[in-house]
């Protein structure tokens, strides 16, 4: 049964050997390990090393704490107002390429206070058939308008 002191002496010998062979980096790194093993020389090396191994493994499995020591909260996923999203989407689609109808529907959409930014973004994505991550409600509204113009132009081309 070797003690930590004996293991440290063995590591020192290995470091000296590395240094003699010109491997300064290896010698320096081995010294770092020697220092990391602590100063209590009489403890059983195998026991101490297995304890350290367990401690490190436990540390890995523990959830990481935030800067203030608080656990990180799971990211919030806002529930969509499905009914409102479906209602506005249907109105927009029903407007087709009719500008007046679209304007009315679009106004109703922009005036709807029950819609969150996520709801508006979802409407914009489904209406414009994209997967864009909108940075603002304004951007989502702009995309809806563009999608309407695109659709109207396409229909005009077909005529």
């Amino acid at each position: 049964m070797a003690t930590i002191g004996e293991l440290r002496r063995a590591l020192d010998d290995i470091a000296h050997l590395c240094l003699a062979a010109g491997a300064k980096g290896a010698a320096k790194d081995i010294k770092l390990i020697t220092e990391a093993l602590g100063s209590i020389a009489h403890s059983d090396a195998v026991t101490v090393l297995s304890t350290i191994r367990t401690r490190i493994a436990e540390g890995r499995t523990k959830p990481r704490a935030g800067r203030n020591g608080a656990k990180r909260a799971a990211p919030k996923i806002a529930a969509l107002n499905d009914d409102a999203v479906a209602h506005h989407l249907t109105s927009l689609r029903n407007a087709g390429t009719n500008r007046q109808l679209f304007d009315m529907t679009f106004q109703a959409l922009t005036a709807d206070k029950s819609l969150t930014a996520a709801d508006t973004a979802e409407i914009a994505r489904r209406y414009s058939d994209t997967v864009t991550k909108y940075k603002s409600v304004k951007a989502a509204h702009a995309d809806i308008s563009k999608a309407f113009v695109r659709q109207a132009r396409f229909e005009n081309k077909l005529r």
Partner: protein
Amino acid sequence: MKVNQLIKVIESAERIYRGNGDVAVADSLTALSDLCADHQTMTVAAFAKLVANAAKISPQG
């Protein structure tokens, strides 16, 4: 230096100690290389910090 390179050095030393009949030290070197084996991609400096922190809270050391 990476930990996987350190393992090679330790294993070579372990064979020498075992060949010389110093089984106890050889066994402790085996335990050290086992500890290193879980962190092969780390640098030795980072690994040493990890060990030092674990050794501080360890009741043994």
